[in-house]
């Protein structure tokens, strides 16, 4: 039966999203009970007691080291980490998030500036374009992130530790999206617009500032959003090698060593929130800038 597609009333974003979120939380609780039950059953069998279904629910949701912590345990861990400590304490998630954030921002800054600079060079020099671009594109297919911990170890054996090695990885990861996006963006002006600039006798610099740069901004921001998320992932993975004691990645690793699942999940959610905030900030700047130069965002 062919159906007529009537315009549906707009449900708004909030109702569907919150429904799906509720379903996820419900599934999570069910999974937590199911996955933690085996340990409780083993304990009960060892003690020679029986556990009723209701007791089981209570027990599985309050374990110290659950296989899967229940949402409220993660929330408690998050609250404990974010608000329950002095922010200078090494148990505080705020402190760890700050360590990660500073390396992320430093790397993102370096990567974005370097990517933009190289893109400008590539757009203006044909030999640079033909030399560098194929490698830049091919390098996107290389799992660079996987070697990040090794870079950290090698750099620390050279005596470089702290923020810089992580920032280098973050910069490397955010460099390529910006480069590829900017090359595309700086090339968007079509022949007619370029001819117009030439008919006004505009110099290369003027063409760059008045035509190429403004028309590349949408591409720049699209790639900046990708780049800042990549920089954060790079920093976190850079914090994984043993020896790192600060940062969200180090929290993940020490949590996995000591079976502190709540700690892992709390660090994970902090990282997720950090990613969301960073992308949202870039998106905000994007909207403001594009509105000011008259783009329809």
């Amino acid at each position, binding site marked *: 039966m062919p159906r007529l597609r009537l315009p549906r009333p707009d449900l708004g974003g909030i109702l*569907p999203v919150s*429904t799906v979120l509720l379903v996820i939380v419900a599934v999570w609780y069910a999974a937590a009970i199911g996955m933690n039950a085996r340990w409780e059953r083993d304990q009960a069998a060892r003690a020679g007691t029986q556990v009723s279904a209701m007791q089981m629910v209570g027990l599985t949701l309050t374990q110290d080291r659950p296989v899967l912590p229940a949402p409220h345990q993660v929330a408690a861990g998050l609250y404990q980490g974010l608000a329950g400590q002095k922010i200078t304490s090494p148990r505080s998630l705020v402190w760890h998030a700050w360590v990660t954030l500073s390396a992320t921002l430093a790397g993102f800054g370096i990567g974005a500036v370097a990517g933009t600079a190289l893109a400008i060079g590539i757009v203006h020099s044909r030999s640079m374009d033909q030399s560098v671009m*194929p490698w830049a594109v091919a390098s996107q297919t290389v799992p660079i992130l996987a070697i990040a911990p090794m870079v950290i170890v090698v750099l620390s054996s050279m005596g470089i530790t702290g923020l810089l090695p992580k920032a280098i990885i973050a910069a490397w990861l955010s460099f390529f999206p910006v480069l590829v996006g900017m090359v595309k963006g700086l090339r968007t002006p079509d022949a007619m617009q370029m001819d117009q600039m030439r008919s006004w006798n505009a110099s290369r610099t003027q063409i760059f500032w008045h035509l190429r740069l403004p028309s590349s901004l949408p591409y720049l921001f699209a790639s900046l959003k990708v780049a800042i998320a990549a920089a954060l992932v790079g920093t976190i993975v850079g914090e994984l090698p043993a020896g790192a004691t600060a940062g969200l990645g180090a929290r993940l690793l020490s949590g996995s060593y000591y079976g502190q699942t709540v700690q892992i999940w709390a660090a994970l959610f902090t990282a997720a929130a950090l990613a969301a905030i960073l992308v949202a900030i870039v998106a905000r700047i994007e909207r403001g800038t594009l509105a000011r130069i008259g783009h329809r965002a």
Partner: protein
Amino acid sequence: MSTLPIIGVWLGGWAINLWLARFDTRASRAAVAAIFGLTLIALWEMTVRIHEVPAVILPAPSQIAASIVQNRSLLVTDFVQTILRGALTGWVIGATAAILAAIAIDRSPFLQKGLLPIGNFVAALPIVGIAPILVMWFGFDWHSKAAVVVVMVFFPILVNMVAGLRATDALQRDLMASWAAPYGASLILMRLPAALPFLFNGLKITTTLALIGAIVAEFFGSPTKGMGFRISTAVGRLDLPLVWAEIVVAALAGTCFYAIVALIERRATFWHPSQRNNRG
């Protein structure tokens, strides 16, 4: 004084490229890229030799090549364990699940509105972070690596596929409706083909993610083989040439994986403008 030959090689390569770049044919473009790459490798080799950089910090390309030849059976074992078992299995499972989920979501506008913002959100998250959790759940062998890869590739493919299923325009849908085509027929004959370019975009992005997930998950625990395991233990023994050998294998595997998917894309979506332009 010892840096003079290095600068000389650089300028020489650059001059050749400046000259070659003026021809701008297919062959000259390939040559320019190849010369650039070779120049970099030559510079690397020369810098290490002339300044006697210790292999612990940066091994020369020749040392890395020697290490690849010497450890080839080890590298093959790691390749099978990490790439074929971990990454490829996970990628196939994750992609299949994402495609099926996208088709299911597509039937319900309510699910679309609910899941898409969450999917977009999750696609931007540092998902590698779940690696320690999944290693705890699924054990040290390749199953946990495949599980990490499944989660990592699921959302990017899902988001792309859902966008792809909406890529048909009203005219095309009306045409199908006027032929009284049932849902299944219009899905298979019209909407799935129209979604292919989007799907392949997602598949290509996730090839790299799959390798990253499989290798990084091994840092959290693995049997005594696998690329991530080998990298971390070789770093511990300061056997840097072996580390770089693994990196070369990972890079080649990543590029080949991407190239294979891109090749399939070209065959499957030959009708799409972006593919047609490539040929002309």
